[in-house]
């Protein structure tokens, strides 16, 4: 690939779809998967810019983003399971009070 503009455009498209998913869906799992899609789009932009500037740092940053995403998914899914135990639902609109 000589020009990275198409890749950045693809990254923008994926990021937008993820953002619309976060805004429209009400199931916590679907919102979470849309967030993963947005992270993926950001990683794609990182790798594309690393390629354009001939710099390895972008790829290393993607590596760290993936590690943090793995930690985030583990904790987030544990939270969803804990919420499901008490509410018997993964609908975020039902989580309207701080008291468990």
């Amino acid at each position: 690939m000589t020009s990275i503009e198409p890749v950045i455009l693809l990254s923008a498209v994926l990021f937008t779809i993820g953002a619309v998913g976060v805004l429209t869906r009400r199931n916590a799992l679907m919102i979470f998967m849309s967030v993963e899609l947005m992270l993926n789009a950001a990683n794609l932009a990182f790798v594309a810019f690393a390629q354009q500037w001939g710099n390895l740092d972008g790829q290393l940053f993607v590596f760290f983003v993936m590690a943090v995403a793995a930690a985030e998914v583990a904790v987030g899914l544990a939270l969803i399971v804990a919420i499901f135990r008490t509410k018997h639902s993964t609908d975020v609109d039902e989580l309207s009070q701080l008291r468990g």
Partner: protein
Amino acid sequence: MSVEFFLFLLVAAVAVFAALGLLLSRNAIYAAMFLILNMASVAVIYLLLNAPFIAAVQVAVYAGAIMVLFVFVIMLLGAEKLNPADTKPALKWQRPLSIVLGMALFLLLGAVILTRLGGAAAAKMIDTSPLAIGKALFTTYLLPFEVVSVLLLAAVVGAVVLTKKS
């Protein structure tokens, strides 16, 4: 049009199709499968962008570990059939407004990309082998690497504590 660019267009179409499938899917398991397809196609684009290590990590960590966790939790909770209320938002204007805001975000991103990104820098080929990445990880990026290991440990302990039956 080079072969590489044709391949990119093909894989990008698959990636966008999978993302739209995730957005419109009524079943959480189908949505997870669409997300795996999206991640696999993005891994192919990483290969085209001269990032073989990141492509391998993408398949192993994202499409492998993270999505297995997702599918496991969806099946554990029996939440694969999304509540019909999920398609009917509590706020009537929520869906049209989110689509308008999404279009605005995309127009903004597109305008910035098309106006500011012109004039590609001289793409010099760099060594992106796993060897070079490993060397950078354990010299320049040693501290963040160790911090990430502590973060993963904290996440594991946190997940166990959160799901433990008291």
